[in-house]
C-alpha cells in the first residue's frame, strides 16, 4: 500500500542501477526492515493482555543506535566542510513531510489489526504501531529518495520515524480503547 503510494506519487529514483546507489538503497532498506521486524515482534506481544509485563522495549532502539553509530563514523572520515551537506542533503524537507504522510496508511492498518486483539498498555502499543508505520513508510520512501549519505539517513529517516512513534503513543489511548 505504502509502496504503491510512493511509486505513483513520487516515482522511483532513476539512477537505481549504479552499484553505489544500490548499496545505499539496500542499507536504508536494512535499517527500516530492522525497525519493522523488531517492532512487529513487540507489537504482537503487547497486543495480548499482560504482554507489557514481560516486554522491555530496549532492543527496538537497536537499529537507531546502529545507524547513528555508522553516521558518526562516516562523519569522522569526512572533512568537516562537507558535514552540512551530508546532514542536510538536498531534500530534507521532502523527507520530513513524506514519511509521516505515507505512514498514515500503514498506521491505520496496524491500529485496525491491534484493535481486534486486546492490548492493556495503550500508549506503548500505540507507540509500536507508530514505529512500524514509520518504518514501513521510510522503507517505501527509500525507493524514491536520492540523498545518499549515512548522516542524512540517521537524522531525517530516524527522526521522522521517532516522530511517527511519538504520534502513535499520543493517539494510542484514544484509538485502541476497548
Amino acid at each position: 500500500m505504502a509502496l504503491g503510494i510512493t511509486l505513483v506519487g513520487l516515482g522511483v529514483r532513476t539512477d537505481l542501477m549504479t552499484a553505489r546507489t544500490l548499496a545505499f538503497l539496500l542499507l536504508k532498506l536494512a535499517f527500516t526492515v530492522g525497525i519493522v521486524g523488531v517492532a512487529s515482534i513487540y507489537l504482537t506481544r503487547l497486543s495480548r493482555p499482560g504482554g507489557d509485563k514481560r516486554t522491555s522495549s530496549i532492543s527496538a532502539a537497536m537499529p537507531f543506535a546502529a545507524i547513528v553509530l555508522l553516521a558518526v563514523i562516516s562523519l569522522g572520515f569526512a572533512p568537516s566542510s562537507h558535514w552540512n551537506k551530508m546532514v542536510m542533503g538536498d531534500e530534507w524537507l521532502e523527507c520530513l513531510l513524506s514519511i509521516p504522510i505515507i505512514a498514515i496508511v500503514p498506521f491505520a492498518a496496524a491500529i485496525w489489526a491491534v484493535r481486534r486483539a486486546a492490548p492493556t498498555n495503550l500508549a506503548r502499543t500505540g507507540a509500536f504501531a507508530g514505529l512500524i508505520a514509520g518504518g514501513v513508510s521510510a522503507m517505501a520512501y527509500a525507493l524514491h529518495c536520492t540523498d545518499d549519505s549515512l548522516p542524512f539517513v540517521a537524522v531525517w529517516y530516524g527522526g521522522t520515524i521517532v516522530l511517527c512513534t511519538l504520534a502513535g503513543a499520543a493517539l494510542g489511548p484514544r484509538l485502541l480503547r476497548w
Partner: protein
Amino acid sequence: MTTHEIELKTLMLASLDGDAASHRALLDRLSRRLRAYYKGKLAGAGRSAGEAEDLVQEAVLAIHLKRHTYDPAELLTPWVHAIARYKLIDFLRRTRTLQADVPIDEADAMMAHDDNVDAESTYDVKRLMERLPKNMRCSIEAVKLDGLSIAEAAERCGITESGVKVNIHRGLKALATVIARETRT
C-alpha cells in the same frame, strides 16, 4: 501453580475448544473472583463497592470477547489479571472526568448561606466543655454530640451506664450555669 489456576485453565482450554458448558462454568467462577477483586480495589480507591458489579460485567464480557488473545502456552491467571486491571483503570479514568463535572451555579448562590454561626457555636461548645470535669465532658460528647447510645458511651468513658446518665444530667446543668453567667457579664 495453585489449584485455582489448574482448574480454571482446564475450563478455559475446554471452552476454547467450543465446550459451551465449560465456558459458562468458567465465566461464572471468574465473575465471583472478579467481584471480590473489584470490591477490594474500589474501596481502596475511595469508591463505593456497588460500582463493582458494573465492572464485573464489563470484565466478564471482555474475557468472553477477547478469549482468542489467550495463549494456551501461558498461565491463565496473569491473562485474566491484566484484563481485570485494564478494565479497572479504564473505569476509574472514565468516572473521574464525570465527577469533576461540577455545574456552573448562579453567582448569587455562592453568597446565599452563612455558615459562620455554626462554626462559632461549635467553637463555643468546645470551649465551655473544657471547663467540665472529665467524666461529664466525656459522657456529653459521646451521647449528645457523637450520637452514641448510653451503653456505648459507658464503654468509651470507662464508667457505668447509670454513671453516664448522672454525668450528662449534672454536666448539662453545669453548662447552663456557666452560659448564664457568661451572658450576664
